[in-house]
């Protein structure tokens, strides 16, 4: 029989027992919905986590430090990957920064500047960490979704506050935008090797440490205008000194020549006799290019750290989660397939005589088998489409419920469900395949009915 006739007859047969077949199809739809809802949550959570991490700017970042600095305290040194021991260690100075910045697939290499500060707002002190942000952060997504705007220029005396810190300053964080605050910090001033007047060490080399003669610390203040408030943590978890909650332009941070913990370390271990950076952050064009760039930097005599392994583990984790969710979601579909088997076996009993007539009129076993397969397939197709829609709705419902709860906790909304095209199409195809598998036994049984006995059936 031709495919058009087969489909037409299958749809007609399904319409004749509309209630039973609708219920069976609804069972398939519920099964598919369960599968889709589970996987949509898995995919949505993965996308959510990936996006949050991507916004942190960590996936395409390589943290570079001199081997002179490695082995001390701090989280960074504990996580260092093995270095190329055949290459001699070298200082992380301006020439090294330029060399690294010139490597293929490197967007930029900039020093990491974080320092302890005291923010004064409304004459009250608020101790916190300040980080210098490169101008590239404007476009790399790290500040997406922030209130206000990014720094007006790389050298602007402006600041962006992390939301939790902003809440400490004001019960109405958004009202802070446009207001001024004062940054109190410890300026590092290099001491001459033999007498002479101390001068800020940042004049020539930004945040470079010129510790040959040691340095003195002088308190300074800088007035900054609040231009934005960000709810995420663009640099969270990557530095050695904890999270930064106040962000200023990197160029401004370099001019401050603020004292960092690494300065003390360098003085104590006397490792640096020349101007050098404590560390560099290297932005690579794509996360996939991180390993090659990382290897190149190591071969230059530096130690590196990236979150590549972490992302691999994250992907593995979500793959396992998706698999488990898929298995649990499939259970409902498995139950639904029993409904298909039951419906088709019932149909064989009811249509026994009809099958006999079909055979008497020239249908062969294959025609009968294909007819029952087509009926199972149509149920799978309709159930699959309905199930995807239902699963999408369930996912949206879960997201809505989650966001209602989050809003009551004064937390920003999230999207934790996603039904990408591959999931929708895959679920429909899966529903059809499962339905066809469920139709195997009934179709085979119908095809092998003895026509003479079938025609006698009352």
């Amino acid at each position: 029989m031709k495919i058009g006739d087969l489909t037409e007859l299958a749809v007609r047969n399904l319409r004749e027992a509309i209630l039973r077949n609708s219920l069976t199809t609804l069972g398939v739809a519920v099964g598919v919905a369960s599968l889709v809802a589970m996987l949509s949550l898995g995919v949505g959570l993965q996308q959510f986590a990936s996006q949050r991490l991507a916004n942190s700017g960590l996936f395409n970042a390589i943290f570079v430090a001199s081997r002179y600095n490695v082995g001390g305290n701090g989280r960074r040194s504990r996580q260092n990957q093995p270095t190329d021991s055949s290459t001699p260690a070298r200082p992380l100075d301006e020439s090294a920064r330029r060399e690294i910045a010139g490597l293929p697939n490197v967007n930029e290499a900039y020093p990491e500047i974080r320092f302890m500060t005291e923010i004064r707002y409304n004459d009250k002190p608020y101790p916190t960490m300040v980080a210098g942000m490169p101008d590239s952060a404007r476009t790399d997504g790290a500040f997406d979704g922030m209130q206000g705007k990014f720094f007006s220029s790389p050298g602007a005396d402006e600041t962006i506050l992390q939301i939790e810190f902003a809440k400490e300053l004001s019960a109405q964080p958004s009202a802070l935008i446009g207001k001024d605050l004062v940054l109190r910090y410890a300026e590092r001033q290099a001491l001459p090797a033999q007498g002479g007047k101390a001068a800020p060490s940042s004049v020539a080399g930004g945040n470079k440490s010129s510790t040959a003669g040691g340095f003195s610390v002088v308190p300074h203040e800088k007035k900054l205008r609040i231009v934005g408030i960000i709810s995420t943590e663009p640099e969270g978890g990557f530095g050695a000194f904890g999270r930064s909650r106040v962000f200023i332009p990197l160029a401004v941070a370099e001019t401050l020549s603020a004292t960092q913990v690494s300065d003390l370390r360098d003085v104590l271990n006397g490792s640096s006799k020349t101007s050098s950076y404590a560390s560099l952050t290297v932005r690579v064009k794509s996360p996939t290019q991180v390993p090659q760039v990382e290897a190149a930097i190591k071969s230059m005599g530096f130690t590196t750290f990236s979150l590549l392994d972490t992302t691999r583990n994250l992907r593995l984790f979500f793959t396992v989660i998706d698999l488990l969710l898929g298995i649990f979601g499939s259970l409902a579909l498995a139950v639904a397939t029993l409904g298909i088997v039951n419906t088709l076996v019932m149909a064989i009993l009811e249509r026994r005589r009809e099958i006999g007539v079909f055979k008497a009129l020239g249908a062969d076993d294959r025609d009968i088998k294909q007819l029952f397969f087509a009926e199972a397939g149509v149920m799978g197709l309709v159930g699959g489409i309905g199930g995807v829609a239902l699963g999408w709705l369930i996912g949206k419902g879960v997201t809505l419920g989650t966001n209602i709860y989050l809003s009551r906790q004064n937390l920003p909304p999230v999207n934790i469900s996603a039904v990408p095209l591959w999931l929708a199409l895959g679920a429909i195809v899966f529903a059809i395949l499962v339905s066809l598998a469920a139709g195997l036994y009934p179709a085979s049984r119908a095809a092998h009915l003895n026509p003479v006995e079938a025609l006698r059936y009352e």
Partner: protein
Amino acid sequence: MSQGNNGVAIHADNVSRHYQMGDALIRAVDDVSLSVGTGEFLALLGSSGSGKSTLLNLLAGLDRPTAGAIVVRGRNLAEMDTHELARYRSLTVGMVFQAFNLLPRMTLEENVELPLRLAEVERADRSARVREALEHVHLEKRLAHRPSELSGGEQQRAALARALVNRPTILLADEPTGNLDSATGEEIMLLLKNFNQSMGMTIVMVTHERPLAERFAHRIATVADGKLISVTENSCDGAQS
């Protein structure tokens, strides 16, 4: 045999169909040899349970003999695979049944169209062929009716149209008037006779009504206990018209 004796349409050679039921061997058809000429109208006459319907099912390719051969157009049905048998049922023979066996969910048009679908006839050709078949049985104005909206005689006429639509050369009828009153049965028999005479169609009809067989068939093959008892030329010669 006064008509259509210029060739053999069906030849059954020592055909048996035995069933094992527990310890008992049921000989539904037992060593029957019979030839049906092309264009002949043969009546298989016998009482209930005599084996005549089983023999008809064997001739229709709906069942396979346990022994013997049934040769149609030079091919032994017993040696055909299921697909070939299906093609044979689709294109060579048409069947009508005592219970009409129209599909109740389909309209008359769809019922008659069904063999064309199974034979994979092009959709464009079907409508004309359905109409032509229904015109043969004078039901061309009842295309959209369902079987339940027709009388018994009309249903059997529709079944005849369905049997004819693929233009078979052999028509096998299993008690075609069994569910009809005598007047309606007469009407159906006249249609069968018309097909036999005007189209040269070979007809094998199972019946337990001797008068009917004697009025319309060229020959009468009498079956009892699965055996062919006699084959007689009909003295009336099926000449009624």
